[in-house]
Each structure stands twice: as structure tokens, then as C-alpha cells.
């Protein structure tokens, strides 16, 4: 059944995205710890490095991961390019704000905006960083799925409390979103006549309070549920898992990129 309006569709799609990364990912034979380490390192280098060549290389690693694992390239492209578009919109004013050599003049009403070469450079650098880092992080996330990412974080010795919280949050996100959708439906069902948009908005916006109250109550019960089955036994040691040639190649590649970046600095 297709959700009726835009809000319902948005909430349902958001829930489905989280679900998809939770259970819809094909099992890969990559070592979670090495893969998460590579994902975070490459994302960090893409974000911080000003070198366009390094960013291009990292972008294509993202593309390569998606192609090699036969993941859904359309979904990957949607996320990556939407984020890049958003970054372009946000950073575009820098082209006219920053001073320097004027390359073009843009008349807007009574004023004339001067687009500088330095401004365009700054926008291009920022967008390319965003594009490369989003591309690589999205591809690794799609390839691994939440469960493998959390396993990888455990392998990287991230505190157990953080990984447990992540696990619970990820499981509960779709539930909260679907709850919100149901609460909206319950309100809509009691709107019996055509009312003004402002009035409708005031009715529907009360859902926020309900979500907060229900979220608090649910969190309290979940905490009790976890507590009821926690026995304070020393936790088992994390198993590192099998390391294959693919993992070694990925690790070697990541270390090389990291070394280039450090030398460049």
C-alpha cells in the first residue's frame, strides 16, 4: 500500500532506508574491523585533504566498492549527489563574498555581484570534499550494513556502551518513524471537514509532543528490559574474524592514501 501524502511517504521512506541498511544488505566476506577502519580513514582524508587528486581517487574507491559488491548504485548516487547539491547551494555565496580576481559580474537588481576566482576555488574545494567523503562513506555503509559497522566499531575498541546504544537506536528508529506516521493518521482521521492549512498544521503539529512523551516512555521501558537481562558478567572478548587477501588489499590501499595525505601536509 502506498502512503497517502508527502509527510507519510517521507516518514515511511526514512524508515525503509534504516530497515534496508539493517537487514537488506548482502553478506560480504570483508573483515568488519578493517573495513570500518578504512571507511573512517578514507572519509577523514577526503574531508580534510585539499588535494583534488586524492579526493578524486577516494570518490572512485566509493564507486568501485558499489560496483564490485553489486550494490544498488542508484540509491548510492541519489544520496551522494543530493548531499553534493546541498553543499553547492550552501557554499555558493562564498563565490561572491570572497574577494580576489573578478571573473564575472552578476547584476541583481540595483547591485552587481562580483564572482571571484578565489571564491569559485573555495566553493569547488568544499564541494569536492563533500562529494568524495559522502561517496566513500555511503558506499561503505551500503556494502556493510549497520550490523557489520557495529561489529567493526567493536573491533576498533569503541566502548561497549556506545555500540549497544547504536544498536538499539538503529533498531528503534523505524519504529519511532512508523509510530509518528500512525499518530498523524489518527489525527487526520478526526478531521471531518475542510479546514484551513494553518488550522490543520496546528492539529498535526501536536504529534511532536506525543512523539516526545512516547519516546521517553519507550526509552524507559527499553532501559528496564536491557537491565532485566544484564548480569554484569565480564563481556566476551571480541573476535577479530578472518582476514582475507581482499581485506589486506583494502588495508594497504587505505594506509597508502593516509601516508600520501600526511606527506602532503
Amino acid at each position, binding site marked *: 500500500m502506498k502512503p497517502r501524502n508527502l509527510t507519510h511517504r517521507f516518514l515511511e521512506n526514512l524508515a525503509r532506508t534504516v*530497515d534496508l541498511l*539493517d*537487514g537488506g544488505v548482502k553478506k560480504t566476506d570483508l573483515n568488519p574491523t578493517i573495513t570500518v577502519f578504512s571507511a573512517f580513514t578514507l572519509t577523514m582524508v577526503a574531508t580534510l585533504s585539499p588535494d583534488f587528486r586524492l579526493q578524486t581517487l577516494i570518490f572512485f574507491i566509493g564507486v568501485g566498492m558499489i560496483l564490485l559488491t553489486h550494490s544498488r548504485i542508484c540509491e548510492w548516487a541519489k544520496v551522494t549527489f543530493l548531499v553534493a547539491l546541498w553543499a553547492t547551494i550552501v557554499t555558493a555565496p562564498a563565490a561572491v563574498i570572497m574577494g580576489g580576481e573578478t571573473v564575472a559580474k552578476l547584476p541583481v537588481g540595483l547591485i552587481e555581484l562580483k564572482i571571484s576566482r578565489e571564491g569559485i576555488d573555495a566553493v569547488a574545494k568544499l564541494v569536492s570534499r563533500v562529494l568524495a567523503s559522502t561517496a566513500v562513506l555511503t558506499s561503505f555503509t551500503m556494502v556493510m550494513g*549497520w*550490523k557489520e559497522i557495529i561489529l567493526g566499531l567493536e573491533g576498533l575498541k569503541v566502548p561497549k556502551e556506545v555500540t549497544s546504544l547504536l*544498536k*538499539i537506536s*538503529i*533498531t*528503534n528508529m*523505524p*519504529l519511532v518513524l512508523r509510530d509518528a506516521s500512525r499518530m498523524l493518521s489518527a489525527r487526520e482521521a478526526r478531521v471531518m471537514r475542510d479546514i484551513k492549512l494553518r488550522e490543520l498544521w496546528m492539529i498535526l503539529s501536536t504529534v511532536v509532543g506525543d512523539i516526545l512523551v512516547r519516546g521517553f516512555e*519507550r526509552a524507559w*521501558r*527499553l532501559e*528496564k*528490559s*536491557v*537491565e*532485566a*537481562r*544484564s*548480569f*554484569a*558478567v565480564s*563481556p*566476551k572478548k571480541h*573476535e577479530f574474524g578472518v582476514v582475507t587477501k581482499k581485506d589486506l588489499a583494502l588495508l594497504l590501499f587505505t594506509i597508502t592514501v593516509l601516508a600520501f595525505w600526511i606527506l602532503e601536509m
Partner: protein
Amino acid sequence: MLLELQDICFRYPRCTEILRNINVSVEDGEAVALMGSNGSGKTTLLMIAAGLLEPEKGLVLLEKKSLKEQLPEARRRIGLVFQDPNDQLFNATVYDELAFALRQLLHSNSEVDIRVKEVADRFGLTGWLSKTPYDLSMGEKRLITLASVIAYDPDILLLDEPTANMSSKVVREIEQVVVDAKKAGKAIVIASHDVEFVARTSDRVYIIYDGRTYGGADIVSVLSDKSLVDMADLNSNMVGLVLQWLDPRSQNPLAD
């Protein structure tokens, strides 16, 4: 006495006192029911018995020693099944849900795996192990919550409204779990409105009314007492039927 609650008083912040001098006890191999109207404090009492809430006054004793002093290790001896399965389930798959406690208690993944499959087989959950619990029906979720507790074999089972909104097939399965647990010498505390289920499973019944416990005797004695039946706000027709079934000579206290 395996589990004993002595003079328990409790209030939620900025609320009136919900429990006043509650006394409940349960022994090995015994099932005890807590009955009372909505909001009488049954769930709160179970949470106190599980050591999840601390009473303002009174003592919770596990084998005559304070439960508070034995926490959190004592939790492996107490299994609480929540009223709403959605409140209890928090893992991504049914397998992880069943394995959550076992992963803390058993040493190797293979031991966990064997036990999970054993329990899944017993509850008919084998085909669902890789599924997300939230996608299943309410009855299936209820079985998962029960299985996740039975998996670590606690000595005391606390069941909060286990049969609420369940079909008769699921109720029969829950009943079987209680009967088996009793045979295995476990102590069971059931908070329920379901007179028939309580009659089939429980040895003694406590009525909680106005924050206090009444009764504590066998089900026929409790259901034959009109004042206790009124306090618990029980379905009069069901009380009559159950009494007839338990003891054909008895009289329905609510009959005109």
C-alpha cells in the same frame, strides 16, 4: 521462601502512593497470581520484584537475602516478561533477542548457538530466527519474549499480563510454559486479568486493591469471596464459569 516481598511501599515521582505495605511470597514449584483492576500496581510490583525499581519502604528477599545486595548477578535467576512485547524486544533479529542474555553467560558462540536453536525449536521459532521481531504478529512477539527469558533458565518467572490480546493458541502455549516451569521447580508470579488462565495455572491468588494485598489463598477461596472479586474488578460470568469448572458445588458470589 524463594522470593518474598515484605511491606513494600512505592510511589512514582510526583504521584500518590501506588503500593502500600504489599506482602507477597512465592516458593519453588509454585505459581502465584496477582489480580487487580487497571492501574492497581501489578506491573510496578513485578518491576520491584525483578529489582528494576527500588521500593520506598520494605524489602525484596531472594532466598531470605536482600535482592538489592545480590544485584546485578541475581538477575540471571529472575526472568521478567513485559506486558507489551514491543517494550521488551530491542534486538535486530529474533536470534539476537534469544541470544542476548546467553552471550553474557555462555563462553563460546557455538554454545550460544546450540541453546538458541534448542529454545527456538521448543517455541516453534526456528523459521523466524533471521527475521526482525518488530515485523511479526503480537502473538509471535509474545512467544519471542517468553523464549528470550526461558533461554537463560531463570529460577523465578515474572509474567506481566502474558495472555492479554493473545489468541487461544498462544494462550495454550503460554500455559504449557507455566506448567513446565512449575514441574521444573521454578517459582512463577503472574499478573493477570484472565481468570481462566489464572485458574489453570496458579496455586494461590493475591488481589491488589488500593495499594494493598488481599487474599493469598487458593483460587476457589478467592473467587468465592464476593468482596475480593469486586476489588479485583473481575468478569462475573467468567468467575461463575471458572468456579463451576473448579468446584461444581461452589456458588458464584456475583450471581443474583
